């Protein structure tokens, strides 16, 4: 089985400050890990992914995420938050060997960047 936990329903940060959105995962094999963002009344948009290689992956809009195998975490980060980053963020995981390529999503974290 594969699962994802996002321990924070809501994260508030001041504009210009660094932000972190937390994610931990569980899979039986090796993981593929993803972050998606959802703006109001829109579908999810892909931000970044970890497949293999460098543990620090860079994605769209200045976001990055660090894969930590020992802690089974994949936290999303950005050095300087913008008001326009305010959105709902989802972490997702897939076991490398899972047929069908379906992702399991976390419950989401609402990020609010305060001006």
């Amino acid at each position: 089985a594969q699962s994802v936990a996002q321990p924070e329903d809501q994260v508030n940060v001041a504009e210009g400050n660094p932000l972190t959105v937390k994610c931990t995962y569980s899979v039986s094999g090796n993981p593929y890990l993803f972050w998606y963002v959802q703006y109001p009344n829109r579908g999810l948009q892909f931000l970044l992914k970890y497949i293999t290689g460098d543990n620090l992956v860079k994605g769209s809009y200045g976001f990055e995420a660090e894969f930590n195998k020992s802690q089974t975490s994949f936290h999303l980060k950005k050095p300087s938050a913008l008001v326009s980053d305010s959105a709902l963020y989802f972490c997702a995981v897939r076991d490398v060997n899972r047929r069908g390529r379906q992702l399991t999503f976390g419950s989401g974290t609402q990020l609010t960047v305060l001006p």
Partner: protein
Amino acid sequence: NAGVTQTPKFRVLKTGQSMTLLCAQDMNHEYMYWYRQDPGMGLRLIHYSVGEGTTAKGEVPDGYNVSRLKKQNFLLGLESAAPSQTSVYFCASTWETGGRTGELFFGEGSRLTVL
């Protein structure tokens, strides 16, 4: 470039009525998915398809049926709607191979209310 298109975008049903949601993608993707999104629960997989003529159950398949008669279309049916099926439904698709591992492309969602 339309991407993933869902119709209808909004629908209100009475308990016991039936309806079909249509998902169409123009990216020649092999894999297609139907998710439902409920507050605090993230996205949960209903059914998916790994190619034309094939379907499989996801995490929450009860009360839903699907068909993939054409590669570009994936239909989600509710035979007898229940209030518990009030949700926002998202269709997604992705490639089979080609190095583009795992990214899902989402439609903008279909909001269904069952009274």
